[in-house]
C-alpha cells in the first residue's frame, strides 16, 4: 500500500509543481483569482475532512479491538462526512459556474489578466477534481469495508483491508491539507 501511495505522491506532486511554477510567474493574477474562492466553505470543508480522518482512525481502532458494531458505525460516519465534503465542493463548483469562472469560452475575469487567471482556475479544477475523484473512490471502498465488517469478515487478527483503506483515506486528506492553503489562502493579506 505504501508503494501505491508513493506513486500517488508523485502524481499529485507533479500537479503541485506545475501550480508552483505558474504561481511564481503570474503571482498577481493567481492572487486575484484565489480571492474568488469561498474561504468559509473551504475552511468548513477542511474541518469536515479532518473529522472524517478522525472517524476513519477510530474505525480502524474499533476493528483492531474487535468491536464490530462500533467499527461499522465509524465507517458509515466517515462515508457521511466524505459525502458532505463532496456536496460542499459541488456547491462551490456551481458558484464558479455562476460567476463564469470555468475556464473556456465563457470565462470572464476583470481584475487581472484573464489568461493568467484562467490558468489558476484550470489548476483549481484539475487539482480539486482529481482530489474529489479520489474521494469518490474512497467512499466506494469504505462502503465495501462497512459491508464486509457488518458481514463479520474482519477480526483483530485480520484487519488489514480496513487499515489499508484507512491509509488511503488519510492520504486523500493530506492532499487536501496542501491544496487548501495553496488554492484558498495564498493571497488573503494582499502581499503580492
Amino acid at each position: 500500500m505504501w508503494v501505491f501511495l508513493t506513486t500517488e505522491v508523485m502524481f499529485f506532486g507533479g500537479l503541485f509543481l506545475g501550480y508552483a511554477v505558474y504561481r511564481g510567474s503570474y503571482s498577481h493574477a493567481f492572487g486575484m483569482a484565489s480571492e474568488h474562492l469561498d474561504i468559509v466553505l473551504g475552511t468548513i470543508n477542511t474541518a469536515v475532512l479532518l473529522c472524517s480522518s478522525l472517524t476513519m482512525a477510530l474505525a480502524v481502532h474499533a476493528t483492531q479491538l474487535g468491536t464490530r458494531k462500533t467499527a461499522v458505525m465509524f465507517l458509515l460516519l466517515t462515508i457521511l462526512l466524505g459525502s458532505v465534503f463532496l456536496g460542499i465542493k459541488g456547491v462551490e463548483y456551481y458558484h464558479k459556474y455562476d460567476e463564469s469562472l470555468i475556464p473556456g469560452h465563457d470565462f470572464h475575469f476583470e481584475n487581472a489578466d484573464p489568461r493568467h487567471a484562467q490558468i489558476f482556475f484550470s489548476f483549481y479544477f484539475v487539482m480539486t477534481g482529481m482530489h474529489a475523484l479520489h474521494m469518490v473512490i474512497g467512499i466506494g471502498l469504505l462502503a465495501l469495508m462497512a459491508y464486509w465488517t457488518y458481514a463479520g469478515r474482519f477480526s483483530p487478527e485480520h484487519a488489514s483491508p480496513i487499515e489499508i483503506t484507512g491509509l488511503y483515506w488519510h492520504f486523500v486528506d493530506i492532499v487536501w491539507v496542501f491544496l487548501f492553503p495553496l488554492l484558498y489562502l495564498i493571497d488573503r493579506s494582499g502581499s503580492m
Partner: protein
Amino acid sequence: MSEHIIPRKVYFTIFGALMVLLAFTVGIAYVHLGELNVVAAMTIAVTKALLIILYFMHVRYSFRLSWVWVGAGFFWLIIMFALTFSDYFTRDWLPVPTGWK
C-alpha cells in the same frame, strides 16, 4: 501493517491539534507578512501532514520498510521541486545576451 494499538486518547489529541492548526493557518493568512505568508502556510501544512502520517497512519509505530517508502516519496518530490525551481526561478538572474531576443 502495524499491530500496535494506539489508545483512543491519542487520536482525539491529534485531531484537536489539527483543528487548532487549521484555525491558525486561516488566521495567519490575513496577516500581512509578504513572502513569509507562503512559508507560514506551508510550514503549517507540513506539520499537519506529519501529524496525520505519524499518528493516524500509524507510521510512527510501523515497520522500517514503511518509513523507507514514505521517505522515498517525499525525497524524490523534494528533488523534483528543487531541480525545477533552480531552473524557473533563476532565469532572470543573468541578462539575456544581446542578439538572443
